[in-house]
């Protein structure tokens, strides 16, 4: 909760910042669109700048404390690159940890947000000696100590030191150096890879991933062409060397080719030497980059009266020159194939098509989607829209509960509208993200958090808006049936009166045509297209005549059924959805507005819960992603090899993560119920003479119509040790008896809790369906990728545990052990298992071993530990879970107290057993199908 509040504060703070001051505006749109190769994919410089700047300054923008000028990430990066020396002295590196500031800057500067490189690093001496040197001797010694202790790689800096404070300080210090290095690397543009390279090793990809060889050339290398012999870039060497002798000398000197004998790297030299013949064409282009960038800097600085317009022009010249070079180099790469004849030790390797394609220079306009995504920041904006919706819905709910019915209802209606907008906006965000990443948005913690939030809001909206959308949707669905097929249901007399009922056949024919087109398009896209979303083929994998592969066929069958089912139903769903927009009004009119509205409003708790839960997830993802990307990383980056499979990502991960969404919705409902139990009003059961209760409990003590003071008095009585003991024994005895005690109880819990329990029960069923299917599909995937269906891997086991705990509650409810309170409590408690399998398997389990043996080191556990991180925010998650469980405990205490207090009072009153009529009938046996 605290984090949530904190996040809201941050959001508000950001909004305040958004009011921009007057400052000259330069057009960085061309700069932002420069394609950059980073972290395994090609992205616009915009994204790259955002990541680097966030790493260094902690935020995606920065304000100069002296001039108050605001810089966005791309402009900031531009400044760093073109005027590094100037920026060394500016306070740009985030450093808020007070003991560290005191150590570096002295006690008088303990407080503050930023620090400049030259504040703590002796830059001149560092540059001379080629290593980082600090102003203070004690600082220097500390860093050397950290470096030594962590050299073996067994320990992280935050594990070095005797005391907890020392360890924290060391961790923060190491982080600061990391950020300083990130700044220096970025300022020298060493990791800003802007054009393809000609290195035959990368083009034939016969190298170890550990060599960290980049297939592109960095801007920094292009800026330091005159020092090309010192730069470690073979492409530039090949294009700058005067002859083959010099090339060979330089390359050998670089020790780039001799280091790695196992792949016979030197053998590539003849291939590389071919680049010499391209010099006349490429060298001028290569040499034109630096002056072009310098020109932009002149214009940016306003030398000789130049201004923003000149800057825009020179920047566009610079980017087009870069573009030109990129395309020329891309063409030149094709000529790096093996020579027909070469020296004796030359083992020619063919160019690798996959590698060439993956690192090809992108076509113009390829960056636009991502630029749009960056500019709009859909998931940041979603936070606001969801926040607005949540605020409206919550206020509506509160107003309606405290007798401002009309106002509450109007506000609720408004909230529904905003919710729809929020969902539509988030959907658009996901579409953009999927297009950019080329895979479903469920590959890391960050993505799953926003996806779960999204699913929660969708489920909440679906359940909550059903009375409103169902008539139109259902009728639209029926209208889109293919005429005279099995889809075409017979009309009842009532149906005949529905909108457009007479035009059913023509509508059906048109929609059949559209659906056929949609069907073909989806089948083509998922089976034939040249995208990463080609998840299956149309023909079964039966190519091997002697080895029939049943498993491959099964996998194919599942894939094909998925393809066919989605191709069959998606177009119809889309048509029905579109059609329902037109049909909803006339159809609802037939049902009657008042009734529809009543039904919708009675389901408000779905939305009142789901939208805040979704908001919580989105804000969490945004803030943690911003502050600690090592926990929730918003970047679209590379993923583990086994995850690179859209087929399974779509089929398994999407299902299982969506089940978390259902679980989260139920969790929200349960928590709301707990609040009702804790703070709500317990009313007397019908048939109980409240005056009798009053007589024995004191005036005004009868539940339901008591004042605050008498309530406190009642509560005080409830806190008497004797009563607490009684409460507990009654509560414990009541465990496992379901709602049986409600039949004889003199008071009833707040009425909304049974609605919530019913809602939660439904959500649990959805969660169970998705969890069961997802877990089983996970087994199928494991069978295909690791060779076993089930092997008790921790992630598998926790998915199963989540399923089991929900099942235990569902069966318990069926058995009569779990009543209304139990269902609500179960909604909250079961979700803790999901948290464990979602978060805990990656962040808690790896630490157990270290805790047990006292070293605190993280170890890998199971096959799913793709990112067992040091930093995890574990204490926050643990605290939240603890508080959550505590809430259940406290709510249960109040519930048990209310029940036992009034029960005993009524017994005293002599209003014997059986004379009261139970307001709530004993739960009727539910049919077995729910089992």
């Amino acid at each position: 909760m605290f984090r949530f509040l904190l996040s809201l504060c941050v959001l508000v703070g950001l909004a305040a910042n958004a009011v921009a001051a007057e400052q000259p505006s330069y057009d960085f749109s061309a700069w932002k669109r420069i394609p950059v190769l980073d972290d395994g994919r090609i992205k616009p410089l915009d994204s790259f700048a955002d990541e680097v700047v966030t790493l260094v300054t902690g935020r995606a923008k920065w304000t100069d404390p002296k001039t108050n000028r605001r810089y966005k990430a791309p402009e900031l990066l531009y400044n760093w690159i073109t005027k590094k020396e100037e920026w060394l002295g500016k306070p740009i590196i985030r450093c808020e940890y007070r003991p560290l500031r005191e150590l570096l800057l002295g006690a008088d500067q303990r407080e503050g947000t930023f620090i400049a490189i030259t504040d703590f690093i002796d830059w001149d001496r560092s540059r001379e000696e080629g290593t980082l040197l600090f102003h203070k001797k004690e600082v220097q010694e500390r860093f050397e100590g950290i470096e030594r202790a962590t050299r073996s790689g067994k320990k992280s800096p935050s594990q070095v030191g005797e005391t907890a404070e020392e360890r924290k300080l060391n961790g923060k210090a190491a982080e600061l150096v990391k950020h300083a290095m990130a700044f220096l690397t970025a300022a020298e543009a060493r990791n800003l890879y802007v054009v393809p390279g000609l290195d035959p090793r990368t083009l034939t990809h016969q190298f170890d991933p550990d060599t960290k060889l980049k297939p592109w050339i960095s801007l920094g290398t292009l800026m330091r062409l005159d020092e090309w012999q010192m730069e470690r870039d073979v492409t530039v060497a090949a294009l700058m060397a005067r002859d083959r002798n010099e090339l060979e000398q330089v390359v050998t000197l670089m020790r780039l080719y001799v280091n790695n004998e196992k792949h016979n790297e030197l053998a590539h030299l003849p291939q590389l030497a071919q680049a010499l013949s391209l010099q006349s064409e490429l060298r001028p282009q290569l040499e034109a980059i630096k002056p072009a960038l310098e020109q932009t800097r002149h214009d940016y600085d306003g030398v000789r009266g130049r201004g923003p317009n000149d800057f825009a022009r020179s920047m566009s010249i610079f980017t087009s020159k870069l573009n030109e070079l990129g395309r020329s180099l891309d063409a030149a790469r094709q000529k790096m194939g093996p020579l027909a004849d070469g020296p004796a030790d030359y083992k020619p390797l063919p160019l690798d098509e996959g590698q060439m394609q993956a690192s090809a220079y992108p076509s113009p306009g390829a960056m636009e989607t991502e630029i749009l995504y960056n500019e709009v920041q859909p998931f940041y904006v979603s936070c606001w829209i969801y926040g607005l919706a949540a605020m409206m819905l919550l206020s509506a709910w509160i107003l309606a509960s405290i007798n401002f019915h009309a106002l509450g209802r109007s506000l609720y209606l408004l909230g529904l509208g905003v919710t729809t907008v929020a969902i539509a906006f988030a959907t658009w965000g996901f579409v953009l993200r999927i297009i950019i990443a080329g895979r479903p948005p469920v590959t890391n913690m960050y993505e799953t958090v926003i996806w779960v939030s999204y699913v929660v809001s969708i489920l909440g909206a679906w359940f909550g808006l059903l009375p409103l959308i169902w008539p139109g949707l259902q009728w639209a669905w029926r209208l889109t049936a293919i005429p005279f097929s099995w889809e075409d249901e017979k009309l009842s007399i009532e149906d005949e009166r529905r909108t457009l009922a007479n035009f059913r056949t023509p509508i059906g024919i048109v929609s059949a045509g559209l659906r056929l087109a949609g069907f073909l398009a989806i089948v083509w896209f998922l089976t034939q297209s040249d995208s990463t979303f080609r998840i299956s083929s149309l023909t079964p994998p039966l190519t091997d005549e002697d080895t029939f592969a049943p498993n491959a066929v099964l996998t194919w069958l599942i894939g094909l059924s998925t393809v066919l089912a989605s191709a069959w139903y998606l177009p119809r769903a889309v048509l029905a959805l579109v059609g329902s927009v037109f049909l909803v009004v006339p159809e609802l009119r037939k049902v009657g507005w008042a009734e529809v509205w009543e039904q919708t409003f009675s389901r408000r708790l779905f939305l009142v819960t789901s939208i805040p839960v979704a908001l919580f997830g989105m804000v969490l993802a945004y803030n943690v992603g911003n502050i600690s990307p090592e926990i929730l990383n918003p970047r679209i980056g590379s993923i583990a090899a086994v995850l690179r499979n859209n087929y399974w990502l779509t089929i398994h991960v999407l299902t299982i993560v969506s089940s978390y969404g259902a679980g989260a919705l139920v969790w929200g409902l349960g928590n709301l119920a707990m609040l009702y139990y804790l703070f709500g009003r317990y009313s007397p059961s019908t048939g109980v003479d409240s005056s009798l209760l009053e007589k024995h409990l004191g005036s005004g003590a009868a539940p339901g119509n008591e004042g605050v003071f008498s309530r406190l008095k009642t509560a005080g009585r409830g806190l008497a040790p004797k009563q607490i003991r009684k409460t507990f024994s009654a509560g414990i005895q009541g465990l496992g008896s379901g709602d049986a005690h409600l039949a004889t109880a003199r008071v009833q819990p707040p009425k909304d809790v049974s609605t919530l329990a019913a809602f939660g029960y439904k959500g649990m069923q959805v969660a169970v369906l998705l969890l069961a299917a997802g877990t089983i599909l996970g087994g199928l995937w494991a069978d295909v990728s690791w060779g076993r269906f089930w092997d008790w891997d921790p992630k598998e086991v926790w998915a199963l545990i989540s399923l089991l705990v929900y099942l235990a509650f569902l069966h318990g409810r069926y058995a009569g052990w779990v009543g209304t309170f139990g269902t609500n409590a179960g909604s909250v408690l079961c979700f803790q298992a999901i948290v464990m399998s979602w978060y805990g398997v990656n962040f808690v389990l790896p630490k157990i071993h270290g805790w047990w043996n006292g070293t605190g080191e993280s170890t890998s556990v199971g096959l799913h530990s793709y990112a067992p991180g040091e930093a995890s925010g574990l204490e926050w998650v643990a605290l939240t879970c603890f508080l959550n469980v505590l809430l259940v405990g406290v709510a249960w205490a109040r519930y048990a107290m209310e029940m036992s207090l009034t029960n005993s009072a009524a017994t005293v009153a002599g209003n014997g057993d059986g004379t009261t009529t139970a307001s709530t009938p004993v739960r009727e046996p539910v049919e077995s199908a729910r089992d």
Partner: protein
Amino acid sequence: MARPKLYRADQPFPLRTLLWLYEFSASLKLAVVLIGGLAAVLAIATFIESNTGTAGARWYVYHTAWFRILLALLALNIFCAAAIRYPWKRYQTGFVVTHLGLLVLLGGSAMTYQGSVNSQMLVYQGQTSNVAVDHDSGYLLVNKLPGRSESLQYPVDFGPFNWADQKPGDFWRRVETALGRDNYPEPWTHPAQLVYEDDKTKIEIVDYYSRSEVRFTPFVQLTFRQAMLDFEIPVELEFDANAHQLGFTQSDFQGLGSVLMWRTTNPHQFRAFTEALPDRTVEGDGVVVIWVGEGEDGETFHLPVAKLQASRDEGKPVPLTEGLAVELVTYAPWADFRRLTTENKLYSQGDDPRIPAVELKLIKQGTEEGAAAEEVQVVRFAQFPFTPGRATMPANVAVEFYHPSLAGRIDILEGPENKLAYRAWQQKLGRVVSAGPLEFDEPVSTWSMGGGQATWQMELTRYVPQDDPETFYKVLPLPFLKDDPQRGTSRRIKVRVTSTAGGETQEKEVWLKQNAPPPWQSPKAQQVEEIKLADGSTLEVSFNVRQTPVGFTMRLDKFDLDVDPGAPMASNYTSYVTIVNENPANGEADEAAGRTRIITMNEPLDKPDPQGRTLRFFQENYLPPGDGMPLGSIFRVNYDPGRWVKYLGSLLVCVGIFIMFYMRAYFFKPASKKMVAAESTEVAKRAADEPAVV
């Protein structure tokens, strides 16, 4: 739920009991308890896995009998719950299908326990292989057993823990130790496993190491700690054949110096080792320290080389104790070994103090008056304090030579009765900074860095003495390691063969390591022990890893490691293999059968083996080239007889749950008009009572 009560009071007792049991097994409450219990057990199991690794979790939970019983109980409960409701109604379809699916799924899992294969296959680039191995499982092979023509195989699946570590109640031991009470002091041994017994021969497995190592003895492991840097470095000293020859063994220590180990059987020398220390900073040409033992005590004499030289020049020996004097013969800054061995005299090759040494003459006066003085030649190198001199020294005299050029070093001495002592020499300070006995759990200070602040603490962590002069090595258990990089490759069993012939009983014990077939291990490295029996015949024992012939010969043609451009992470592994020979039995390459197959991430290869089982080959890992071997690709080879059953079960479960949803399609619809009217009065309560209709 409309379920009839089956048992009644008027039924005969056995029937009533049976029906009661049936009803109990079918009860929902049992289901809730079992489901909850299973969830709790599994949760604990993942924590165990986190602490002890996958192998540990299997050993403690997943592969135990009680866990299977728990699953069997669940299956029984599921079955009875479905059966007791027979005849089923239409609306129960989903329920029945789901429960049937669960039963099938559990049945499939039970089938997996029987006769599945889960092995690994290694193929080096350009080479072939036809066998998969399971490193976690092995067997003892006994050949030439008297009275048996065929060989004997005994399965060895003893788990991830050494037998010695499998003390019962280990958890409680821990708890009680924490409480300060340890009630398990007695030595505990794992019961032996009887492999074979007839009236003449008996074969047992008497011990088992899941992880082990072979060490030359004596073997010492020291741990150096630097508290300020929180730094820890282990140093191992092992007396291998070479060390036995030289008389010492040596290990470098992070550029700070070296750690050496010596041995002596002379108690005087052992004592002198920690007492014959220079009493001041060693300067100039060094100092000779002579220790003379007398009874319980010893006396130390410090003789700087300069002083000895002066005395020599004066022509008089330096007197030590009564009747003992010493005289310097030569001081050689750079001793000439060759001439020392050939001429038995010390010469210097130059003035550089590279190998400083002294030649001394110990003059021992005869005890009787007028007896000729006995002279003993002593040559001492600063670097090699324990090099035995040529002449016999008096047992109670020790001579040490310290020189300022001596680099930092720590000497460890193994004395009589397996006692250890240490001595730390710091060059910068020119003296021995500490010396004394070395014992377990007693860290000692050694070198210091930076003004005596950061001191390296040395602690004895392991010491394995040489048991008898004949055996130079020892098989040692290693403690359990969560992520053992060489999982299963250092397993060993100790086999005892007892044979009787002519009333004489003979017992032989031998440690066997687990052999793996090529290409995992070269044929030369296989261990097969011949054991002589009492009747003079021999039998062969060996311990081998479980092997699965895959039924064909596979060659690795090419291995691809895909990388995202510019990312340090592999994006895919792909092996291009050729099936060279469909029938390895005929031993000939059959290129006609050779077709290239691709095995890559998420795309395994299926191929039936000679028994008709379809084996699946998954790309699992690779070995980078090195040690003269090309790159190797590792495949997981898998066969699961229950696979299809599990698939069927999964399908039934999913279909069943879906049917449950589908058959209550009204679940998603809005409430009827009647309901709304009711809702307006008592919305919530009614909703709770009929959760299906809201």
